[in-house]
């Protein structure tokens, strides 16, 4: 299959520089994502962590050029294997979506059309861009269904989504995302709707396919324990900005931002069952209420007056964070 993006010199994978997304116009305009920079190399996994409304899914939508009505990319660049995606025309971007970027969704129950058979749905992206005839698409769908581990795939091709369990449906979604062998896979909370055992199976499957295809993976979740297990690097989002990011190992060894610290403390541990789980008081600000200072300040245990005046400077190298009073002292 012809690649949409010709390979260009430079680092493979996804590079995002200073990405900003805003909604509205003129004086009513507000940013939902601000100065986001990160990269995911081919074969690597980035864990994108944050609570609801922190901009995780909005980031994914911006990467795919599918922002909701009224939203636009206001700043920055998104490069996939050296090609600038923000400059592409609508049809070119659509082709990129079909072939170069695959996506898996949070809710496999509603992401499949109830009135189409599994074979028809898996073949959908393939027929949109592979230009294949029905029989070839069907054969391909069968291969993929086997690959993602659906038992008795040949018999299940003509089944409808309601005849599949949640985990099996997510496998079908993964098969759909992989039809055109994308370079980037965005997994938006792929296991939120699934039970723990299925969750482990699905994540293992994604990992195996990632290795086989050499895909860059962005793994969006609010579950830090999954990130610890599956991601090479971590980016913690809070209210539309990255508060801390870096290699997973360094991050989990010593999280520096008070917010990351608080998130880690909120993970239950089997070793200390008697310990009361900590939580964070208050709610994150809404995009219209973002202040010029640190956005976590109102809920931060280490807050000082200077936190409210200006957004903190970046500190650190590969593992860096934006905080004036980092956990464990200033760098």
């Amino acid at each position, binding site marked *: 299959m012809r690649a949409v993006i010709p390979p260009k010199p430079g680092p493979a994978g996804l590079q995002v520089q200073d990405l900003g997304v805003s909604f509205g116009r003129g004086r009513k305009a507000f940013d939902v994502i601000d100065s986001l920079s990160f990269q995911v190399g081919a074969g690597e996994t980035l864990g994108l962590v944050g609570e609801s409304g922190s901009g995780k899914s909005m980031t994914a939508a911006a990467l795919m050029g599918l922002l909701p009505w009224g939203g636009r990319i206001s700043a920055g660049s998104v490069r996939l294997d050296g090609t600038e995606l923000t400059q592409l025309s609508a049809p070119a971007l*659509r082709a990129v*979506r079909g*072939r170069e970027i695959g*996506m898996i969704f949070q809710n496999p129950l509603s992401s*499949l*059309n*109830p009135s189409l058979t599994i074979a028809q749905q898996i073949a959908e992206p393939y027929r949109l861009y592979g230009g294949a005839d029905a029989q070839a698409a069907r054969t391909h769908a069968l291969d993929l269904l086997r690959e993602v581990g659906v038992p008795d795939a*040949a018999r299940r091709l*003509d089944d409808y989504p309601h005849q599949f369990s949640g985990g099996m449906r997510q496998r079908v979604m993964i098969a759909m995302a992989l039809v055109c062998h994308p370079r980037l896979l965005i997994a938006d909370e792929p296991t939120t709707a699934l039970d723990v055992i299925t969750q482990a199976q699905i994540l293992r499957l994604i990992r195996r*396919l990632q290795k086989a295809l050499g895909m860059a993976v962005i793994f969006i979740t609010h579950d830090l324990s999954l990130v610890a297990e599956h991601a090479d690097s971590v980016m913690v989002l809070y209210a539309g900005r990255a508060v801390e990011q870096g290699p997973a190992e360094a991050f989990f060894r010593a999280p520096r931002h008070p917010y990351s610290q608080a998130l880690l403390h909120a993970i239950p541990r089997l070793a200390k069952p008697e310990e009361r789980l900590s939580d964070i008081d208050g709610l994150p600000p809404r995009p219209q209420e973002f202040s010029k200072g640190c956005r976590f300040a109102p809920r931060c245990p280490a807050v000082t007056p200077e936190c409210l005046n200006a957004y903190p400077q970046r500190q650190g190298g590969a593992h860096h964070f934006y905080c004036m009073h980092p956990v464990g002292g200033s760098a």
Partner: protein
Amino acid sequence: MSSHPTGMAVNTRLVARPVPGLFTRLWTGSLSHWVGQYSHPMTWTGLTIFVLLLLFSWGGPWVYPADPLAIHANHILLAPSWRFPLGTDNLGRNMLARMMAGGRVTLEVGLLGSFIALFMGVLYGMSAALSPRWLDKVLMRLLDALLALPGLVLMIFFAALVPLNALSLVLVLGFLSWPGLARIVRNEALAYKERDYVLAARQFGAGTFYIARTHLMRSMLPILIVNATFMVADLILALSGLSFLGLGIQPPHPSWGGLLNDGLQLVIIGPWWLIVFPGLAIFLAIVAMNVLGQGLLARLEGR
């Protein structure tokens, strides 16, 4: 074992399964699913009556070939008999033959007219649902204006402008009946276009037209079928109304509405067969389509 593009082994033993033939695939795949989806006693009742009417109108002339326009001056206003099973009219024309010919025209206009209305309604409604918000608003206000016009008056107006034959009546009735459908289509499309699977399709690179064709149309097909059914009944009634007013199919060509009108002119001298049979036919056609529609609707609403 063979290799797949991803480099993983594929078990070829499982691949060797006979590929079912086209009919088997159609039947096991979607057709049986379809029939099961719509099957309901009312559906079958309505469908049976309607098919019988179709058989009467189109198949009848093979069993009983008679000229609907031939005048038998010696057999005026005869009650039903062996020679004229439904009697004759005031010009001695064979009522059974006229009922068959009238049925062909009436059902034709009903079916083709609703096909046009369906096509226009889907086109307009889909366009509105998939266009930018401001354009959607403009199109919907325009639709409100169209819906506010009284249908029968418009039909009379247009019927006065065009030569009255089956084709022109199909066009007039079809093109005047779509606004209601357009609104239904637009509302359905709006409801379905935010579904997760439609968003998913967009994320897999599907364009607007593809989504409209594949996902939206398929989702609203049941409700379209139901509405098309009712539309056929409405158009049969509308044509009969126009014919009754003398603005339908023009004499000497028969239509059920026209036959009823002719019969009523003579009601004082008492040929009941000139009123009962066309009336019964119109009644049956409309009841059939409504019962059919109700049956489909019942399944649609999960009863």
